[in-house]
């Protein structure tokens, strides 16, 4: 389970990329990043991924990490980030 601080930082990144027009009023950690939520497209999602790499000093593998499930919501992305961080 990702900590509240990580969730908040990931949500901040997502809000920056989505902007106010695409952010749903009730946006939360389980709001879909794509259709029906923040409506981020592939390019937007890559921008989120790159920003998260910089924010959390982690590195992703395009083939294995960036799946539909891992990029479903802020919570799913935060879980991926947690799994990538050194323990």
């Amino acid at each position, binding site marked *: 389970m990702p900590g509240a601080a990580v969730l908040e930082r990931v949500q901040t990144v997502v809000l920056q990329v989505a902007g106010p027009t*695409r952010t749903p009023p009730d946006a939360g950690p389980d709001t879909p990043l794509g259709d029906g939520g923040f409506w981020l497209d592939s*390019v937007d999602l890559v921008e989120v991924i790159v920003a998260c790499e910089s924010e959390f000093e982690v590195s992703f593998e*395009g*083939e294995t990490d960036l799946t539909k499930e891992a990029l479903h919501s802020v919570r799913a992305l935060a879980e991926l980030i947690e799994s990538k961080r050194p323990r």
Partner: protein
Amino acid sequence: MSPDSLPRSSIALGFREVWRRRPALYSRPLWALMIALDRLPWPWGEDILASLFAAVALVRGSRRRPVLAWASQQPGGRGLRLALAVCAFRGRWVARATLLGVRSPAALSRRAVIRGDEHLTAAPEGTILLGFHLGPPNVDVTLRILGQKLAWFGTSRNSWVWSSEAWRPLSDPRQNLAPPDDEWFWPGYLYRARRILLDGGALFIMADSWIGRAAFPVPLPGGPMIIRSGWLSLCRLTGARVIPVVTHLEGRTQVITVHPALPSPIPRDADPLASWREIITALVSDYVRRYPEQCPVLVFPPTILPRRRGPGRPEPDGHARPPAGGFVRT
């Protein structure tokens, strides 16, 4: 074993497996015919498919009417003759897309040349090779066969040849960033494409893809070509230079023309699209004027089948817009 004595990959795979691999964009009768034609020496099957597509246009109004309407809007007024040539090239491109009857990469390389390859000279920065759905398909494959090092970013290939030994070096997943047809999820592939460019590699991508946001239209007689924004996004994410590439057939030889890179770096106060749009519009317009018969995609654009149900992303005014994603069918 010489390349030309290699067994047909469709035979090696077996009919059942080849049949199972039929892409959704080909009808069953067409796929069956292509499997049969693959037995013939290249390019006999391609020639037969070209003639067949022209003949079908003569007898089927649904094919004849749009192509005649398009042909009548082209300069020169060649009417029926141009219309039939467009349909024949459509058949030829269907054959080329599946590498029908082409037994080995060497066979293809013997009938392909690159013009302007000095523009491909190695540079430290990443390079986007920008293709168009004009002329023979699989330009990136031909470029690779001719010795260029690059990766493909786009939709998956529809051919049985990729499972054969002769073509295996070209089907390396690291050089083919293409999600499977039944699992279109692009961020991972886009991320890998970005990495390739940031590492100074070359990436081939189509400007007039079927998916993604529209960047700008190229006005053409008979209807515009829509340039998408995927390559622009990659360019913005990586600072890669962009080199337009077009290709056409001269007799039996595929000519690949590499143009100079689009002006870069873009001045901060300039709109990159303004100058790039002008260059791309001139390039595409010139191609269509010179080789209208090799542009069937402008007459028969693929039909987009919706993959998503429900409303699309809401517009600022609160109204939903149609889904943008799609599955390609021709």
